[in-house]
C-alpha cells in the first residue's frame, strides 16, 4: 500500500532524466504527469517493480484539453490550434491494493504517445478508442484502427472539442 507521493518519489529516483511531475492541487486524486515518449518504460517499471506491482490497468482515457488558441471560422465554428491532447491512465494493483493516476500530454498537431498494449492487454481496445475519438497515435500498437466509428470515417475525431459534424458520409446525409 503506497501513497501517490511515495510512488512519485520512486519514479523520480528511477528516471532522473524524464520530466516527471506531480499535481497535488486536484481535490480528489493526485496526478503524476510523465512525458509521452517514456510511457512504455515507466509503465513497465510500474508493473514489474516489486514494491509497486501495478498489474491491472483500470481505465485509459483520452482527453482533449482544449488549451490551445481558439480561432473563429467564418461559419461561426471554432477550431483549436496548438495545445495538448492528454491520456489518463488509472492503475491498480490487485495484490498490493494501491492505485495511481498517470497523465501524459502530447502536442495536438502531432499527438504521439507510446502504447502500453504490450504491458496491459486491456489497453488494446482502450487505445483504439482513444485513437478513434481523439486521433491520438499510439506508437507500437499492433492494430491501431477505428473501433466505434466506421472504419472509413474521414470527418475527423468526434470527441475533440472543435469537431464538426460532416454534412454527408458516403453520400448519406448525416444530420437526420
Amino acid at each position, binding site marked *: 500500500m503506497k501513497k501517490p507521493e511515495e510512488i512519485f518519489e520512486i519514479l523520480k529516483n528511477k528516471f532522473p532524466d524524464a520530466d516527471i511531475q506531480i499535481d497535488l492541487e486536484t481535490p480528489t486524486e493526485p496526478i503524476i504527469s510523465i512525458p509521452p515518449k517514456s510511457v512504455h518504460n515507466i509503465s513497465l517499471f510500474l508493473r514489474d517493480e516489486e514494491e509497486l506491482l501495478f498489474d491491472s490497468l483500470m481505465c485509459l482515457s483520452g482527453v482533449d484539453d482544449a488549451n490551445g488558441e481558439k480561432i473563429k471560422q467564418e461559419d461561426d465554428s471554432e477550431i483549436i490550434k496548438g495545445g495538448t491532447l492528454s491520456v489518463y491512465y488509472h492503475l491498480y494493483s490487485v495484490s498490493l491494493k494501491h492505485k495511481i493516476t498517470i497523465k501524459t500530454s502530447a502536442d495536438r498537431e502531432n499527438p504521439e504517445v507510446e502504447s502500453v498494449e504490450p504491458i496491459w*492487454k486491456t489497453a*488494446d481496445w482502450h487505445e483504439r478508442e482513444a485513437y478513434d475519438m481523439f486521433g491520438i497515435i499510439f506508437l507500437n500498437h499492433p492494430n491501431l484502427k477505428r*473501433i*466505434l466509428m466506421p472504419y472509413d470515417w474521414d470527418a475527423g475525431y468526434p470527441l475533440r472539442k472543435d469537431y464538426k459534424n460532416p454534412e454527408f458520409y458516403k453520400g448519406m446525409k448525416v444530420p437526420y
Partner: protein
Amino acid sequence: MAIKTEEMILNMGPQHPSTHGVLRLELILEGELIVDVIPHVGYLHRCFEKHCEAMTYPQVVPYTDRMDYLSSMYNNFGYAVAVERLLGIEVPERVEYIRVIMGELQRIASHLVAIGTYGLDIGAFTPFLYCFRDRERILSLFEMTCGARLLYNYIWVGGLSHDLHPDFVRLTRDFLKDFKPTIKELNNLLSYNKIFIERTANVGVLPLDTAINYGMTGPNLRASGLAFDLRREDPYSIYDRFDFNIPIGEGTHGTVGDCWDRYYVRVLEMYESIKIIEQALDKLPEGDVTSAIPKRIKPPKGTIYSRVENPRGELGYFIISDGSLNPFRVKVRGPSFISLELMGELCKGHLVSDVVAVLGSIDIVLGEVDR
C-alpha cells in the same frame, strides 16, 4: 498429421440471435477449429460521451440508463457515487440503504437475464422462461417505486427521485421468500444438467493471470479463482456494513475459469445479493430521500475516477470537471467492453459451436460496449 488448408472467414452477426445485440464476430476458421475471433463493435454507438459534454450533471443520469440497459439502476448508482465524490457531499442513511437494495435487486435481475439467455444460447428454452418470470417481479417492484420498468432515472446525484412505495418492503420480502426455492429449481433444471455441463465445462478456460492482465473484473474474474469484489475491495456507499461471501470458481466440473464456472458464479451471487437485501431491509432507517439533492450541481475543478461493482464487473466513471455546470469529459469504463476484448483469446482452438457458449458466458451487453 493434419492437412494444412486455407483458412475460412465466417461472419457471425450483426443479426445473429446469440450475439445479444448487434455485434459482428469475424471467425477465422480452419475446418471447424477456430484460429481467431475478431469482434467488430460500434453498431450501437450513441455518442454517450459526446452528449455528456452538452448536458448538465443531472441530465446525464437518463443517458447512463441507456448504456447497460439490463442494469440501469447500477449505472445510475455508479454515476451518482462519482459525482458525489467530486462534490464531496454525504447522502442520508436512508438513501444509501435504498440504493443498496435497488442495486442488489438489479444485480439479481441482471443475472437472471444472463443465466436465462445463456441457457437459451446453449439450447435450453425452459429456464429462460422461469428466469424472466422472476425478473418481471423485480421489474414490477422497480416500476412501483419509480414508475419505469427498464430505464429508471431513479438514483440521482445526492438522493433519489422518489421515496419507497409503502408496500415495497413487504413485497420485496415476499419476493425473496419465493425466489430462494426458484434458484434451487433452476439449478436442478440447468446447472446440474449433464448436457449443459458437457457443453460448458472445459470450454473457454480463462487463466487468472490472463484475466488480470486483460483487466477482466466481476463474475468473470471471480470465476477464474480470485475473490476480487469491489464491494469488499474498495467499498463505496455502505457495502462495508453488510455480511456476504464472495463466490469464486472452483472448477467443479472441469478447469477453474471455464464457462460453467462463470455461469455458476452468477447463480451463487444471487444468493449473496439476497443476503445483502435482507440485511438492508432489516436496518432500513427512516428519513427524507430528497433533502441532500443539490439545487445546482457545480463541482469544483478536478478529476475523479470512481468505480462500482456492476453486475458485469467494474463500472468506472472518469469525470473531469472544469468548474461549470456541464462535465468537461465523461469517460465510461464498461466491464463488457473489456470482456469482449478477450473473445479471441477464449475461443482459440475450440469449435464453432463453442463460440456461442463462450460469448454467452462472459455476459456482455452491447449497449455498454458501444455506449
